[in-house]
């Protein structure tokens, strides 16, 4: 699943991203990431009869983030909400022919943004406003090599095995 470089598919989606844009009359909107961290995605969905009938997005981020958003938009369209919610980041990475280790979290971001949009839609129809709980304090460290979050106690990255020592 890990590649040394971007696959043809990633680059193709990056160069020609599908479904880019916003939906003025979206049924659900999901926004994840943080521009200060270099990645942010906003997904817009339209839902008919429990199915996603249209998807748009905007993304601020790297090549992988753009490709992920694009492929997620393709994968989501036509799926039921349950199917779409079940989309895991592994599925997204596989669809792209794999991702470099340090870009793995972009696929997480894509899955999350879509899910947030669906949860937003569900909250809207159930009349509740979604209030996100307070952020948990960070007990994580980010692998400098692959970018995956690891427990603060980890000495090696769980994902790629890189050393996580503070001094290196």
């Amino acid at each position: 699943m890990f590649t040394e470089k971007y696959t043809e598919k990633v680059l193709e989606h990056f160069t020609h991203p599908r479904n880019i844009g916003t939906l003025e009359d979206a049924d659900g909107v999901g926004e994840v990431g943080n521009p200060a961290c270099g990645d942010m995605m906003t997904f817009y969905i339209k839902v008919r009869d429990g199915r996603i009938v249209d998807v748009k997005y905007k993304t601020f981020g790297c090549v992988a983030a753009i490709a992920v958003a694009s492929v997620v938009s393709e994968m989501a369209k036509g799926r039921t909400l349950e199917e779409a919610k079940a989309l895991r980041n592994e599925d997204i990475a596989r669809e792209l022919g794999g991702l470099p280790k340090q870009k793995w979290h972009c696929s997480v971001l894509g899955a999350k943004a879509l899910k947030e949009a669906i949860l937003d839609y569900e909250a809207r129809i159930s009349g509740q406003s979604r209030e996100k709980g307070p952020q948990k304090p960070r007990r994580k460290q980010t692998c400098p090599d692959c970018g995956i979050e690891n427990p603060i106690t980890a000495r090696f990255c769980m994902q790629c095995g890189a050393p996580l020592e503070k001094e290196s």
Partner: protein
Amino acid sequence: MKERIIYLDHAAATPVLPEVWEAIQPYFRDRFWNPSVVYDLGSEIREKIEEARARVADLIGAEAGEIIFTSCGAEANNLAIKGLALAHSQKGRRILVSAIEHHSVLNSARFLERLGFEMALIPVDEKGRVNPETLQKMLTPDTVLVSVAHASNEIGTIQDIRTLAEIAHANGSFFHTDAVASVGQIPVRVQELGVDLLTLSGISLGAPKGVGALYLRKGLRIMPLIHGGIQERGWRAGTENVPGIIGLGVAARILKERLPRKGPYLRRLRDRLVEGVLSRVPRTYYTGDPERRLPGHASFCFEGIEGEALVFTLAAYGIYGNTGSACASKALKTSPVLRAIGLPEVVAQGSLVLTLEEWNTEEEIERVLEVLPQAVARLRAMSPIWKE
């Protein structure tokens, strides 16, 4: 794959110069002997290494005996920082390094913290300059070493090393400068800079990869980093990278010749590039010091977009630049250098660094000025945080 590449990432790597390539070829197969062996074949190689040492010394106004060959700039930085601190810890255990140092300086100092040293970062102003007064205030009697890079590879700013080194010396502290970005771009003379140690690397000089050097002022003692045999007079063990060292020597000779006309040429190209970008791309930051900067160095931040995506968009047109420091660019963090000069993190994300060499042409610059505004616009159009 691309019709023609416009390569503008010379801070990350330079092609080996034709003269260097010519010179090193015999040393792989025909003259492959170990320079340490006693017999005549080894002596021939040893002489070549000494010739290279003299040439590298000449490029920076040092004596041959003051040059230690290493395997890269990072090793030379590690040797300088750790080697000096460990050999002079009786003088003090405090080390000052600027906030915009290369990782190999920064992390060497961090390593020393684990051995009981104390490390502090010298802040820089919004142009990336270390203020002499700030340094003065941070010096304490037990400050053994100050390290400030001569020029930044990320924002191009050139420091006033001479003044900083004088202040450090007045305090009895040693002074190291990482000159990887400046050597070969501007005149670098150790006497004029007044430094005790200076790092350079082959990667930006048209030498083969796998070679760097440390200038160590005559009489100054450091602790070796790579212990072992008596290569490099005992300062650095290990069989020498013979073609690498010979190549660095030839590159040094050539660069010394070319430096006088190279600087003005690069500055002209660079100024055209910068002026064109700033006038064509709105909400663009020209990072670093617009005056005291490396002649071939242009660095920008474009609001609303992310640097890697921009680099790839440009690469699709055959234009190759970088985002932040090559050595750190796989790690997905905002550049510490851009944070140190006070850029908002979200702006710092959109960084692009273009580093020119004498073989770059005006036509290439014009082509960049055509493509870059479109590339930025394309990414801004898909960015959720960009508002016209």
